């Protein structure tokens, strides 16, 4: 192996000021990833010996990590100054190798993802050509198999709908569908293939950076979202443990303050589900720099939702609103489960009244809306907080427009009773004042 590659890397790093990751290098030079890692290491070594350039490197560390008695396999990307710290925290270090070399001190992990983006996108079909991770069973599905899979996933949701209507949980439709699919993938594959399968999911979903923090407790964690739909709020602990590490006020406050409300997982979009389940129970207090996977996913989805909302609703809306219809449909007829985009555009009277047409009964509902409040606190600092506030609304245009955010209702147990009472009361009075809708013809049974 001649030393030409050293000049190449030198050119990339110093002249072009690129972030050279091992994956990018292997795709650019057409070599196996392990060779690329060695190249980077030699280059770094040589430059350090010469003492010439100010180079910075990031490393990928993976190994066994024990936290609160649970052992997990943790993979993380850390800066050089945090490397020893990360290694010492692991009970057994399985592998350490150079992840990237660059001139700049990276303050966060975002650019690492962008650095590979184009190269990976170009080679999407064969991005694992030079990869060291192999699974003989991992073969792309034929289109017939893909169609079959779509049909089978469409069949279970009608069943789960019935069950949901009976329990006091209401979740968005795609959520039960996806965990089943993903759970199936994890059920059949070995635990040792976790990284491979999670990588495949990532590629399919075009999600975040390929380096993720995985966990052996992942399969166990995955059963929880699905079992939560069938169990009565009993399993709050796995919920909390996964939620705790997400530094988002909305989820933690909802878990803390409203224990009897539907699991917060219900409201989060599907992608976040996948991302969360793929992320290890991480220790926020740890100093290792990690790709803040769940954080970014949440924010991404927030901004995505914001984007979607803006297209449909031209009025400026600065608050992050999430609708969680937290009362079950008491009526017997099958209520059309509104998919997540529809839930997010809750303010569209059209969308809401469409689903209501079937019920033909104007109900008054309380819903929890995620609002962000900006205020000046004691020290004179401007603080923006996101929190759930109860808001009552009924599924008619008139009432909707006049609804204002009511004061936060911290008592969920009474909240539910109120909903039912107000619903029935509203139903009674609304029937008399509102014009009968077209479905009134079919109403009286």
């Amino acid at each position, binding site marked *: 192996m001649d030393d030409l590659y050293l000049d190449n890397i030198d050119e990339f790093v110093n002249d072009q*000021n690129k972030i050279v990751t091992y994956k990018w290098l292997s795709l650019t030079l057409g070599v196996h990833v392990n060779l690329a890692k060695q190249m980077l290491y030699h280059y770094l070594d040589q430059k350090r010996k010469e003492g010439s350039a100010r180079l910075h490197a990031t490393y990928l560390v993976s190994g066994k990590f024990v936290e609160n008695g649970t052992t997990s396999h943790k993979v993380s990307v850390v800066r050089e100054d945090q490397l020893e710290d990360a290694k010492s925290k692991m009970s057994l270090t399985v592998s350490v190798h150079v992840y990237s070399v660059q001139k700049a*001190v990276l*303050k*966060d992990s*975002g650019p690492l993802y962008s650095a590979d983006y184009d190269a990976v996108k170009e080679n999407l079909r064969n991005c694992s050509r030079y990869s060291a991770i192999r699974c003989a069973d991992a073969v792309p599905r034929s289109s017939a198999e893909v169609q079959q899979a779509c049909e089978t996933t469409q069949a279970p949701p009608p069943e789960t709908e019935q069950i949901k209507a009976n329990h006091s949980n209401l979740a968005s439709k795609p959520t039960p569908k996806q965990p089943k699919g993903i759970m199936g993938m994890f059920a059949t594959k070995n635990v040792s293939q976790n990284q491979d399968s999670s990588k495949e999911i990532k590629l399919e979903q075009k999600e975040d950076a390929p380096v993720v923090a995985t966990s052996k407790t992942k399969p166990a964690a995955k059963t929880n979202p699905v079992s939560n739909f069938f169990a009565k709020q009993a399993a709050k602990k796995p919920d909390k443990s996964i939620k705790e590490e997400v530094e988002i006020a909305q989820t933690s406050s909802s878990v803390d303050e409203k224990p009897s409300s539907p699991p917060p997982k219900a409201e989060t979009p599907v992608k976040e589900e996948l991302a969360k389940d793929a992320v290890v129970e991480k220790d926020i207090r740890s100093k290792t720099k990690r790709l803040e996977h769940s954080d970014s996913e949440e924010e*991404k989805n*927030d901004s995505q939702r914001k984007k979607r909302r803006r297209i449909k609703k031209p009025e400026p809306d600065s608050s992050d609103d999430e609708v969680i219809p937290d009362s079950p449909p008491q009526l017997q007829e099958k209520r059309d489960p509104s998919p997540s985009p529809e839930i997010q555009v809750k303010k569209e009277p059209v969308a809401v009244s469409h689903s209501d047409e079937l019920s033909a009964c104007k109900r008054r509902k309380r819903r929890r809306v995620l609002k962000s409040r900006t205020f000046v606190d004691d020290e004179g600092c*401007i603080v923006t907080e996101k929190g759930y506030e109860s808001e009552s609304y009924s599924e008619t245009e008139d009432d909707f427009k006049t609804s204002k955010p009511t004061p936060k209702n911290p008592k969920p147990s009474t909240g539910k009773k109120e909903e039912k009472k107000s619903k029935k009361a509203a139903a009674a009075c609304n029937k008399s004042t509102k014009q009968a809708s077209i479905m009134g013809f079919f109403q009286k049974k």
Partner: protein
Amino acid sequence: MTTLTRQDLNFGQVVADILCEFLEVAIHLILYVREVYPSGIFQKRKKYNVPVQMSCHPELNQYIHDTLHCVKPLIEKNDAEKVVVVIMDKEHHPVERFVFEISQPPLLSISSDTLLSHVEQLLRAVILKISVCDALLENNPPGCTFTVLVHTREAATRNMEKVQVIKDFPWIVADEQEVHMQEPRLIPLKTMTSDIVKMQLYVEERAQKAS
């Protein structure tokens, strides 16, 4: 294959929208990378399919938003030659200037379906370059502030004064002190050329930052 001229305002608006969105992301990123504000106010968001850092502070966001809102009509008419983000030290002397030179070809042609994804790719590359620019620049002294200057072609600002785009957000002619920098060093960052816009990004840095 359609060829549009400048008079076709719809397309001009599209280009202006793209550029203003990009400038917003770029300004936030510059503030993050150059540590003008503490990194705590920034959160990761997604743009062009990659993570970027955007600020959460409402007043800062509003300021940047209003600034770009006023710049947009200039870009639409191709009157904006340069948009400059100036970072100044405590004495309001410029320390760094991030210059976005924008030029739009007079005949815009929408030649392919992949035009927008191509533009997205180029903008992504510019964002990446901003993220690693701290390798090429010296550290700034503490307590820096920033401002946005727009260099226009000819006399476009006279029209701007007549029509105030946003009330209570006036634009004034910049002081000599803010525009000129002592002993500037030029560091090119990125050039992008596409069918709809050509942009150059370079940094002018003062040779001695710590005063």
